């Protein structure tokens, strides 16, 4: 047999020479090929977090309401009345780049398993997607594939896809980002399940689909950059079967609820090896696995292939021996395998047998503790130049109304209806504020779980149910969910950009009335071995940590995706730390949407009207608006440039608290945050859904276009009846938040009329709301116009409700 040292096989498997030496010294011998494969998967960046572990410790994860922080399949927080919410976000970038449909579909399936593994019933998905310029034919193919992949899996398992974001920027052209978040509910926190093994002698079972050769080396593939030859890695992409995924949810929740399992772990990246070693690692036990007992869909698979397969819709369960039969019955009813394949030991070793022969034997502790790297980080030289911007040289538009129509039609700003109407967002009958209606989506938590078990008590007739404490007659609880990140800000100033992502995600939730409760993050970067990429990563993590502390929101789970780069120059994507956030509403019927809903209501700008006084304000502040890194600047100059807007986290916290309080008291009828595209875009978005006009007067110093499209943070637009105005002003003064009535909602069919008053004079424009709608709704469908535009249904959502 050829020795490992002569062939240097480890290099082909993605291990460094130093790592190979470490393995050899740990084992006291050279590893065989199977063992080397186990290490190569577990020590990949994807599974091992080698380059991120040290920094992720900076993130605050503690709070009294945190029931489970990082380290499990997903994080869990208590939202009151005995209800726990489970959340996690994950990337599926690499698979989606080479096979968009299956890549995205299995991303949905994977994150879904992370949620129900904890014993939670999944209630919704969110998707944070980034692509290159949408006019590009390849980008169109990728986006159409990703959206239909998410749609195919999510719709089939019957879990609504309710929110998310889609952004388009050049650097994502060959390496799109596909981040999927899932949120679930646990009605009895004593049933939370975890990936543990319990006592030696417990039985290890593989449940769900049979194991095939798909997705082998998927984790390692996700830990490299994408090249022109990445097409050959298509076999590394797994294939999803949402039907089996749906059956697996039901069967797993049954055995967890009946407390038949000791531990349960999703088989995701790196398949069986990952789930087995993580479970044994957490419990400081060992495990024996008989590979020949693992149900397979292909003959002749080697031990290496069985251990590394990423066949989807599988879980690893550990159970006490006397429960095995009952577990098999439950899975059998759903037509699924549940097969004992080994047992828990006290050896601390992972021992793999094939037909009685020992084929691999490695210490669990070494598999789950890869070397941790803290590579050199260096602020890139281009940063000072990038942040340089002379705002006076930005061309000024002739006609502000036309500028507003143009920015509304920018793919980053435009309505994403084309995307979300392919997702079933109303299944489950919990979607209270669905996609396109607010800055976040709001789900309710039913008092009573409809139906309970499918099998118990067949003739009882009445609904079996799990009642939430305080039950009917009391208001229903609500959950608001969002994802957010402005990658352009993060490129120009990673620390500030990451802080802004946290602030805006929290702001999105607050606009519905929900109090932010927990963060799950998905950190997308290039190759961490490059000093400037690692610097971006460090800055972003520090930024998230800072903002999360300031706003008191714990980070309870997350995912890191490095090596997002492509092309022969291996250009990295923009740093993209996506923030997923969940908030709680005591009474879901109070949840607020963003559109104007009544003629005559007063429109109030909450937060700073002009950025002039903000210390450290972004480029353009001295001329009336922070346009550094803005969508407007990119529209006018074609450049991502300047210092992005500053985030005053104290002001942000006070502003959000004010809006939440106003919503809870029922004093406002709508609330919408100001973000990309600034005040101008926010006004249009408030008018369009209900076809209401508005008459608005804005005051400031400097350029009207900067005032209208600057992206100064910590701001919101709310609308309220005139009678509420005095008390709103009072409360704002008490809380130290600037507010000013800037106009009125006009009747249906009236235009949006805006007057901008500056020291130099007055600019006024008027645009019919129907034209705003056409620009905003038409942009994305017109890019995909080879596909049927059908019934665009403009205005149907808001006006008819």
């Amino acid at each position, binding site marked *: 047999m050829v020795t490992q040292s002569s062939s240097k096989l480890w290099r082909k498997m993605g291990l460094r020479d130093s790592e190979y030496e470490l393995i050899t010294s740990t084992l006291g011998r050279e590893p065989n090929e199977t063992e080397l494969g186990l290490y190569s998967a577990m020590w990949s960046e994807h599974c091992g977090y080698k380059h991120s572990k040290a920094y992720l410790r900076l993130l605050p994860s503690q709070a009294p309401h945190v029931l489970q922080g990082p380290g499990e399949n997903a994080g869990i927080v208590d939202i009151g009345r005995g209800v726990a919410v489970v959340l996690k976000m994950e990337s599926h970038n690499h698979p989606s780049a080479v096979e968009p449909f299956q890549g995205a579909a299995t991303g949905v399936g994977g994150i879904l398993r992370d949620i129900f593994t904890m014993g939670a019933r999944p209630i919704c998905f969110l998707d944070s997607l980034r692509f290159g310029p949408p006019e590009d034919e390849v980008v169109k193919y990728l986006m159409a594939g990703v959206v239909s992949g998410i749609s195919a899996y999510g719709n089939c398992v019957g879990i609504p896809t309710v929110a998310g974001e889609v952004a388009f920027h050049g650097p994502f052209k060959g390496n799109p980002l596909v981040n999927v978040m899932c949120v679930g509910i646990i009605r009895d926190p004593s049933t939370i399940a975890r990936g543990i093994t319990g006592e030696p002698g417990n039985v290890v079972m593989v449940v769900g689909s049979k194991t095939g050769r798909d997705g082998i080396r998927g984790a390692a593939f996700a830990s490299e950059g994408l090249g022109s030859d990445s097409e050959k890695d298509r076999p590394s992409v797994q294939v999803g079967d949402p039907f089996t995924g749906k059956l697996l949810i039901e069967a797993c929740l049954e055995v967890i609820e009946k407390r038949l399992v000791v531990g349960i772990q999703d088989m995701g990246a790196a398949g069986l090896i990952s789930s087995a070693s993580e479970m044994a690692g957490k419990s400081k036990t060992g495990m024996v696995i008989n590979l020949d007992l693992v149900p397979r869909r292909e003959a002749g698979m080697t031990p290496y292939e069985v251990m590394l397969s990423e066949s989807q819709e599988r879980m690893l369960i550990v159970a006490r021996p006397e429960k095995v039969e009952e577990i098999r019955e439950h899975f059998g009813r759903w037509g699924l395998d549940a097969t004992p394949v080994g047992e828990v030991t006290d050896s601390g070793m992972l021992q793999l047998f094939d037909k009685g022969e020992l084929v691999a034997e490695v210490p669990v502790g070494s598999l789950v503790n890869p070397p941790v790297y803290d590579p050199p980080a260096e602020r890139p030289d281009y940063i000072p130049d990038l942040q340089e911007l002379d705002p006076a040289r930005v061309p000024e538009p002739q006609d502000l109304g036309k500028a507003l129509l143009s920015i509304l039609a920018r793919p980053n700003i435009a309505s994403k209806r084309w995307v979300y109407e392919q997702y079933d967002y*109303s299944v489950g009958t919990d979607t209270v504020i669905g996609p396109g209606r607010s800055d976040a989506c709001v789900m309710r938590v039913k008092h009573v779980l409809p139906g309970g078990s499918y099998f118990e008590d067949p003739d009882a007739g009445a609904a079996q149910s799990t009642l939430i404490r305080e039950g009917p007659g009391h208001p229903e609880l609500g959950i608001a969910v969002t994802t957010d990140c402005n990658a352009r800000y993060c490129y120009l100033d990673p620390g500030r950009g990451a802080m802004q992502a946290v602030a805006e995600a929290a702001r999105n939730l607050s606009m519905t009335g929900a109090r932010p409760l927990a963060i799950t993050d998905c950190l997308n970067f290039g190759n961490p071995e490059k000093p400037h990429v690692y610097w971006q990563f460090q800055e972003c993590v520090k930024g998230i940590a800072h903002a999360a502390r300031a706003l008191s929101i714990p980070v309870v789970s997350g995912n890191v995706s490095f090596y997002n780069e492509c092309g022969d120059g291996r250009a990295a994507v923009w740093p993209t730390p996506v923030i997923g956030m969940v908030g709680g509403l005591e009474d879901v019927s109070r949840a607020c949407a963003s559109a104007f809903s009544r003629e005559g209501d007063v429109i109030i700008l909450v937060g700073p009207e002009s950025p002039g006084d903000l210390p450290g304000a972004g480029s353009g502040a001295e001329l009336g608006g922070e346009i550094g890194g803005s969508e407007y600047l990119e529209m006018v100059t074609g450049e991502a440039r300047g210092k992005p807007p500053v985030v005053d986290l104290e002001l942000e916290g006070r502003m959000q608290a004010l809006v939440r309080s106003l919503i809870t008291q029922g004093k406002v009828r709508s609330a919408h945050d100001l973000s990309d595209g600034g005040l101008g875009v926010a006004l249009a978005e408030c008018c369009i859904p209900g076809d209401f006009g508005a008459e608005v007067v804005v005051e400031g110093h400097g350029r009207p276009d900067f005032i209208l499209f600057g992206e100064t943070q910590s701001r919101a637009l709310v609308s309220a009846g005139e009678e509420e105005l005095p008390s709103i002003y009072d409360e704002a003064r008490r809380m130290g938040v600037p507010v000013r009535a800037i106009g009125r909602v006009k009747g249906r069919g009236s235009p949006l009329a805006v007057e901008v008053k500056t020291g130099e004079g007055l600019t006024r424009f008027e645009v019919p709301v129907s034209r705003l709608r056409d620009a905003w709704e038409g942009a994305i469908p017109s890019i995909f116009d080879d596909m049927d535009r059908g019934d665009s249904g403009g205005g149907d959502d808001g006006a008819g409700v």
Partner: protein
Amino acid sequence: MKIGVVVFPGSNCDRDCFFAGALAGHEMRFLWHQERDLHNVDCVILPGGFSYGDYLRAGAIARFSPIIEEVIAHARRGGLVLGICNGFQVLLEAGLLPGAMLPNKSLKFVSKPVHLRVENTSTPFTRLFDRGTVIRLPIAHGLGNFYADKDTLDRLEGEGRVVFRYCDRNGNPDEAHNPNGSLNNIAGICNEEGNVLGMMPHPERASEEILGGTDGLVIFRSLLS
């Protein structure tokens, strides 16, 4: 009324139907696809979802399940059967209703609220509506493009068996408000006796004010007494 909601592997609106039915005041229960006993229910609901994965053709496998034989016998006896979305597709495959479903004209899944005109109020499912009323229910399907040959279509129209039609908010069934390409904007049909109704829109998703409307609850309430 006693209502049973059939659970196929892959059904995913079963719990939603159970919940909406209970809200309307019915006695609800699930019926497992391998059972042959309808447990004396008065009405069977075939819920939405992807029965058996629908990898072959929507509803094509479900039609051979043990429970469907009983559902067919129940319908022939005059028992009530309501098929929603995938359940409508199963009714077509099982021959309880005429016609077939094609992929949506856009070839994409479509999920949104739509307006519907109630065309027939003499069925047990629609008797609380006024004829011609415009209601609003969500749709969510990839194969909802109803097709039937000309004779069948003429019969359905002639006998007043088109129960719901896609329309604008004023009740005009125009092309612009046909979300999937269905012939004659058909969203729901019934059998000759009116005891079997198939519809693509989801009434169970519009059964509470907090979800944006209660037009769907009227269908469940129509079944009371």
